Every structure is written in structure tokens, then in C-alpha cells.
């Protein structure tokens, strides 16, 4: 009788001490079994489970910190190159103007993205802009194709625009970017794709936390001539004397091909910088999240440990007093 009363007493004391509402991170893995036990007050949650979870979160935190450092060092290396290459496309824009709203029959959208993931939202942004440009330039008698650089954009665009993809290049960042490689790539694209206007979509590196989606337009020589005759921005082109080459169209062709390779070079460098910057911030927020999670888990662990000690003490004491009394 007294023992039953004391046992009931013990249960009533034990139950509120053990946390009846385990916190979120534990809910998924510990699930129902531990909650039942806590509510009945028989045995506490095993500290081993919490300790395992803490170990894995700590490992994740270390890995993401290391990835952030790696991205930071890669960013430093490539950033000076990107800033130096910014002067390259400016003469072309000064001469030929910037005509994103040009109306042509054959549009080719060149999307630049990264091969590796874990870099935040920049690849999705590039794909969204590319899809937007596709929609903008769709219409009767107009066609719009994609040329994709990088695995991530390919994976996203293959899902709904598979028939519009002309070319796809991957593994471009195995060797550090240099102009010769980009020139060969540009040559490949120009030879295999029929185009009136090439629209290059990339993320411009503004600062370590800011990346601006940008699109540059390169027109084919025929369209340049057509726009020059029509007037507007390119109207002054006719006033330029042409030196070298036999005909004006030959020089214009060389000019547009050169423009494409220069703009591509700058775009690829800027996109690579944006990728590293985005990866740095993504890994940084991931380490911070892991740190927060670790703090919460530590609190749970301590509470669990203390609760189990208290339960043991109660059992011992009630057992001892039951024996005496």
C-alpha cells in the first residue's frame, strides 16, 4: 500500500521533470517511441541518440566551414582576372551600342552556369532569366534556341526545353579560364549555330554578397548592317571608315566574332566569381545553422542527462525508503 503510494508519488514527480515536448530536431529521428516513454515516465530518452546527432552536425559544420575557406581563396584568385577583363567589352558597346530589344528571327540564348552545386540561387536565377528571354522572343516565324555552358543549367533546362537545346558544354572549369580556351569555345558555337542575335545570360559580380543577372547581346554581321541602315543606335556605324579587309562585310564579320569571344570571356569570369561568392555565403549560412542546431542539441542533451540522473536518484531513494518503511 505504502509502496504503491510511493511509486505513484515517484511517477508524479518524475513525469514533469522529463520534458514532454521534445524539440524539433529530435522529433524526426526519435519519433514516437521516446515520446511514449517520456509520457509514461518509465525510462528517459537515451543520451546516445542525441550525442550521435551532435557528432554528425558538428562534422557538417566543419565541412561547410572548410568549403567556405576554399571558395574564398578561389574567389580571390579569380576576382582580379575578372576585374581586369572588364575593359574588354566596353569598346564594342561604345561602337555598336547595346540593343537588347532588337527584333530578329533567330535568337540564340547562351546560358552560363556552374558545374558544381551548393552555390546558392545563381544558377536558378540564370535559368529563370533565360526562360524569360525565350518567352520574350517567342512568336510566329521566330525561333529561340539554347546553348548551355555548365551542368546545372543543363539539368534544369533539359526538363522542359529539351528540343530547344542546340549545344551543351560542361567541365569548363577544369583548367583556369584563359582567353584561348574561350576563343576556341566561341569559335565552336559560331560555327555550329545559326544565329541572328546571341544573348548571353550570366551573373555579374558586383560584390561578395551581390550578383546581378545580366544579359549581353551580340548581333550577327547581317543584322548589324540592317540596323545601321535602319538608324537608331547603330545609325552612326555607316560614318565609320573601314580599314583593312577587302569588303565591309568581311571586317564586320571579324568584328562580331571578336566581340562574341571578348564578351564571353568577361561573362565566364564574372559568372565564376559570382559562383564562388555565392558558395561562400551559402556555406557560411550553413555553418551558422549547424552552430545553432548544435547549441539546441547541447541543451537537450544536458536536460536529458540531468533528467536521467534525477530519475535514477528517485528510484534509488524510493526503493531505499520502501525497504526501510
Amino acid at each position, binding site marked *: 500500500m505504502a509502496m504503491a503510494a510511493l511509486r505513484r508519488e515517484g511517477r508524479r514527480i518524475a513525469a514533469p521533470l522529463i520534458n514532454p515536448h521534445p524539440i524539433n530536431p529530435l522529433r524526426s529521428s526519435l519519433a514516437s517511441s521516446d515520446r511514449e516513454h517520456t509520457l509514461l515516465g518509465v525510462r528517459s530518452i537515451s543520451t546516445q541518440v542525441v550525442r550521435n546527432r551532435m557528432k554528425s552536425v558538428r562534422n557538417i559544420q566543419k565541412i561547410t566551414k572548410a568549403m567556405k575557406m576554399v571558395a574564398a581563396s578561389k574567389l580571390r584568385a579569380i576576382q582580379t*582576372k575578372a576585374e581586369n577583363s572588364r575593359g*574588354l567589352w566596353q569598346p564594342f558597346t561604345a561602337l555598336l551600342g547595346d540593343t537588347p530589344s532588337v527584333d530578329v528571327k533567330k535568337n540564340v540564348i547562351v546560358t552560363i552556369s556552374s558545374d558544381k552545386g551548393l552555390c546558392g540561387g545563381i544558377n536558378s536565377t540564370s535559368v529563370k532569366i533565360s526562360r524569360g528571354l525565350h518567352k520574350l522572343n517567342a512568336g510566329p516565324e521566330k525561333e529561340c534556341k539554347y546553348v548551355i555552358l555548365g551542368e546545372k543549367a543543363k539539368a534544369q533546362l533539359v526538363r522542359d526545353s529539351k528540343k530547344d537545346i542546340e549545344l551543351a558544354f560542361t567541365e569548363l572549369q577544369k583548367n583556369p579560364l584563359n582567353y584561348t580556351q574561350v576563343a576556341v569555345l566561341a569559335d565552336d558555337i559560331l560555327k555550329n549555330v545559326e544565329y541572328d542575335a546571341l544573348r548571353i545570360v550570366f551573373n555579374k559580380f558586383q560584390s561578395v554578397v551581390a550578383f546581378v543577372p545580366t544579359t549581353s547581346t551580340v548581333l550577327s554581321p547581317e543584322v548589324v548592317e540592317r540596323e545601321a541602315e535602319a538608324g537608331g543606335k547603330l545609325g552612326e556605324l555607316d560614318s565609320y*571608315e573601314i580599314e583593312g579587309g577587302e569588303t565591309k562585310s568581311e571586317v564586320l564579320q*571579324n568584328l562580331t566574332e571578336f566581340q562574341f569571344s571578348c564578351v564571353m570571356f568577361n561573362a565566364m569570369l564574372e559568372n565564376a566569381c559570382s559562383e564562388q561568392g555565392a558558395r561562400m555565403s551559402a556555406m557560411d549560412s550553413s555553418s551558422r545553422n549547424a552552430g545553432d542546431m548544435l547549441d539546441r542539441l547541447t541543451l537537450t542533451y544536458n536536460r536529458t542527462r540531468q533528467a536521467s540522473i534525477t530519475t535514477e536518484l528517485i528510484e534509488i531513494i524510493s526503493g531505499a525508503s520502501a525497504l526501510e518503511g
Partner: protein
Amino acid sequence: MLRHGPRFLLSRASAASMGWRRQFATDLPAETAGDSKFVEAWKKVIPNIDPPKTPSAYMAPRPPTPSTIPSKLTVNLVLPYSSILSGKEVDMVIVPATTGHMGVLPGHVATIAELKPGILSVHEGNDVSKYFLSGGFAFVHANSVADIIAIEATPVDQIDPNLVQKGLAEFQQKLNSASTDVEKAEAQIGVDVHSALNAALTG
């Protein structure tokens, strides 16, 4: 001696943090007429996403054509790897166009010139700086701004004459033994560049 320690560390740390601060690019968000047409068209079709920026938003606008001929020529020499001269005011430049060396003075008629490998000389007062260009394009605008875009440009005093002679002999040999058109074209380019280098060193 111990007191210099913290100062050294502090300067290193501030240099590292200065490195991060340097990254804010001075982008001028100016929208020109062509852009607004694009922005409007975009907003009609895709209202939820912001339109992408275009290169003219990142460029300082060029000066308009003055009514009188200015006294100096503004030269920009850019390479993929760096801008060697940007906005430099000079008296004259001589560019190696495919039709021969062309002198550009302030007030020169607007020209687009294709360049062959050769020497670019920049004259400012009594200073003449010579660069060997690997080829590219030169634009002279009506507002006396000259843009020269090349793939490689080295100051002439950094060229090694022995290597030039060796390269010339090698490419001439390749030209003689070339079988396919592609090989012949490549060897011809090599010979052209090296003979231009040779002329640059001697001339």
C-alpha cells in the same frame, strides 16, 4: 621590438579586410533609351521577375562629339587580361592596321581598323612608348576617343631577340613541311607574327 609585433599583425589584418572592401565595383546604374524598351517589353511578358541588366548599365557614357577638334586624343588599350591604358590623353598613336601603319591624331575621321601583328606607338609630348600587338581591332570615334583591343601587348623592350629568331626558323620549317591547309595556315600565321616581331626589334 615587441611593440612592433601587434602593429604588424594589425596592418596585416587591416590589409586583409581592405581587400574585401575593395570589391564594391563602381557600377553606374544609368538606363538608356534602348534599355527602357527592353525593360517594358520584359515587364509585360514576365511581370514577376526583375529584368536582367544590360552592359550599358555598367559603362560610363562616352563624351559627345565636340564641335571643335580637341587637342588631345583619349586612348584605351585593352587586353583580355588587363587594361594597359584607359583614358590616357596623348597626342598621337600609330596603329599597325592590315593596310599598313596608320597614324591617328585628335579629330581623326571615325574608323574601324583591323590590326595585324605589329608595333603600336603612343606619342605623348616627347615620350614614345612602343607595344608589340598580336592583332585585334582599333576603333576611332568621332569624339577623339581611340579604343584599341588586342589579345596580347608587350612593351618592345621585353621581347627576347634570340627566341624570336628561333621561333621564326621553327615556323618557316613547319611551313615548308606542312601538308594540310590547316597546318599551312597555322605555320603561315606563326611566320607572320615572328617576322613582325623581328621587324619590330630591328626597326
